[in-house]
């Protein structure tokens, strides 16, 4: 029996096989850090008198708690300022490379790794952030960890883990041109549920996946966690190598050839068996929007808010009922009749250059609807911001009436001042529509950048085809 991609990467990192029910010990090639989940880990090291084992396999940036305006002024929030300065202090003390706010390499940690060429096929990558699964787009085994594990990796460069189960998600066929990576992953989560991938690494396969760009692949792997999976992966191919070539930390010359030779072996064998398998036909997919308070509660944009009574599972029925109440929606209401207050384009899911291009292409020549309170466009990293400005996208956004911000997580998680107020409704290109995620009492509809942009023009949930 053959081996899956995830198993191959796992086996190449095995420090020690667990015996008698003990977990395996696996080596970690890269740990990414940010200000929120690291202070207690550094403090733990300090208290135990330990040092990081491999600072050269560690990189820090600031993203979750950084402002997206006035970044050259003192941070008016003292608690946030302390958290940011604590990271700077810790990095200095322990010798960890840091890209802080104002540095062109600052940005959301899951954009910074790939753009520097530090995220490469076949690596194990961890970060104290659940969306670390993003890096799986390169054929890396990448997953989120808690702060205790952040400390464990700092101290030992390993993690003690039981092998993950494997799951294949096949998307075969031809996508319609208005269907994006975000729609694919929202459809997958709606199909398998928020717990469907629990304990598994999902490998996304099939002809529709192979045709996607690296940015689109990152969007898909990013939201694997929303299906409950430990990680998402896509086997590396020419698209991957093309993206990596010439990036600052990509191998060069003879090392590049050696690396590519190894990377090409990183695919599931034809006779590999997955613990679970799910198949979607690309032709069946449509732009997708969530109506509820977990990412599995989504439907095609041209359908209606479902009736809770239509769910056979009692738990799902209760969850749907509660979600409709929280979201102030009625069963049977067309999705396209829902008016929104705020539009957020950004996050580690959809804040990359391709996403900004897609939003700008829809917005060009239009102005936001008068009923829309604000449109925030937040690039995933400072480099993405600079690239967008080089292409003139910032001008399109400003002419549209949108706010063009500095890089960071921003309104995705409502930790910095970019928040919704109670009952305010957003359409958001981010990854979570949980109760209060974007601010206490906020209501979130998840969608692709193109749908978010079309919604900003019409004031109610819309797709570009409606314009």
């Amino acid at each position, binding site marked *: 029996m053959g081996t899956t991609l995830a198993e191959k990467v796992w086996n190449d990192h095995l420090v020690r096989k667990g015996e008698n029910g003990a977990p395996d010990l696996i080596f970690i090639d890269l740990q990414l850090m940010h200000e929120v989940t690291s202070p207690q880990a550094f403090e733990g090291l300090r208290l135990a008198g*330990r040092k990081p084992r491999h600072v050269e396999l560690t990189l820090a940036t600031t993203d979750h708690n950084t402002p997206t305006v*006035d970044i050259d002024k003192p941070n008016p929030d003292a608690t946030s300022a302390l958290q940011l300065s604590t990271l700077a202090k810790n990095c200095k003390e322990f010798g960890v490379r840091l890209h802080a706010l104002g540095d062109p390499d600052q940005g959301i940690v899951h954009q910074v790794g790939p753009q520097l060429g*530090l995220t490469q096929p076949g690596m194990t990558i961890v970060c104290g952030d659940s969306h670390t699964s993003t890096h799986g787009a390169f054929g890396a085994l990448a997953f989120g960890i808690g702060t205790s594990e952040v400390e464990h990796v700092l101290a030992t460069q390993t993690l003690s883990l039981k092998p993950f189960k494997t799951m294949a998600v096949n998307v075969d066929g031809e996508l319609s041109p208005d269907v994006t990576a975000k729609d694919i992953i929202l459809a997958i989560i709606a199909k398998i549920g928020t717990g469907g991938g629990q304990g598994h690494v999902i490998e996304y396969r099939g002809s529709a996946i192979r045709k996607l760009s690296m940015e689109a692949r990152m969007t898909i792997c990013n939201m694997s966690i929303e299906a409950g999976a430990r990680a998402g992966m896509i086997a590396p191919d020419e698209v991957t190598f093309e993206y990596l070539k010439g990036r600052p930390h990509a191998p060069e010359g003879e090392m590049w050839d050696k690396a590519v030779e190894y990377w090409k072996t990183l695919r599931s064998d034809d006779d590999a068996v997955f613990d679970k398998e799910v198949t979607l036909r690309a032709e069946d997919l449509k732009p997708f929007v969530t109506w509820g308070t977990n990412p599995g509660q989504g439907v095609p944009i041209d359908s209606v808010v479902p009736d809770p009574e239509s769910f056979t599972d009692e738990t799902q029925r209760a969850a749907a009922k509660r979600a409709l109440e929280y979201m102030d929606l009625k069963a049977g209401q067309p999705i396209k009749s829902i008016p929104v207050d705020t539009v957020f384009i950004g996050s580690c899911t959809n804040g990359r250059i391709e996403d900004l291009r897609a939003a700008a292409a829809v917005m060009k020549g239009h102005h936001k609807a008068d009923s829309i309170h604000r449109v925030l466009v937040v690039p995933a990293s400072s480099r993405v911001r600079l690239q967008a400005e080089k292409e003139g996208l910032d001008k399109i956004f400003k002419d549209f009436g949108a706010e063009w911000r500095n890089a960071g997580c921003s309104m995705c998680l409502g930790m910095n001042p970019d928040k919704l107020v109670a009952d305010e409704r957003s359409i958001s290109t981010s990854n979570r529509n949980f109760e209060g995620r974007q601010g206490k009492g906020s209501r979130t509809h998840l969608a692709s950048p193109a749908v978010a942009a079309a919604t900003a023009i019409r004031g109610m949930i819309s797709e570009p085809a409606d314009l």
Partner: protein
Amino acid sequence: MEKLTVVTGTGVPLRRSNVDTDQIIPAVFLKRVTKSGFEDALFYAWRRDPNFVLNQDAYRDGKILVAGPDFGIGSSREHAVWALHDYGFRVVISSRFADIFYGNTAKNGVLAAIMPQESIELLWKLLEEEPGRQMTVSLEDRTVTCGDVTLPFEVDDYVRWRLMNGYDDIDLTLQHEDDIVAYEKMRAEKFPFKPKTIPAKHLPEVKVESARPVPETPWAGPISDRK
């Protein structure tokens, strides 16, 4: 880490599925750089509701939380476990836990016990019939006792062993120092192309201009408030 063998205390029925870590502790509390003092942040939004289970006197000193399926989904924030622990919870029972949350519990002396949804429904019934009812969770026997009912739960053998002994993960790993050194040597030979973050390599330095706040435009408030 404190040892955990038998826990007796008030059981709290939380009739909700998909309890995500944003509900357990909202992001605003993640600005703190400390590891304790999160008890007030636990279920922050829900606790504003006077009918919420933890606002009822009988359940206020809860020690064992009995929740619906897919508990702890979403963000990896270990603060969720710290908040549960700081409030007084030592055990969370659910039919299914999100992986990262599950891993985080065991590292903080909190037991995540897995039981079938039918057992959860039965416990909910018992705890609601007699609010404030004491339950006992025995990690030794892998059982939950509530009134006259004793039910089995699932727990990973290794997690159980660590919790019962209060072992620290880093200490356990460092017992395998020789294996780590051997792997590092092999890695350097077999994978010389793997990247290092230091020395840093960059694209050319460019100045990043600050964005400025856009002046507030008059806004009639959320659409839902405009009647």
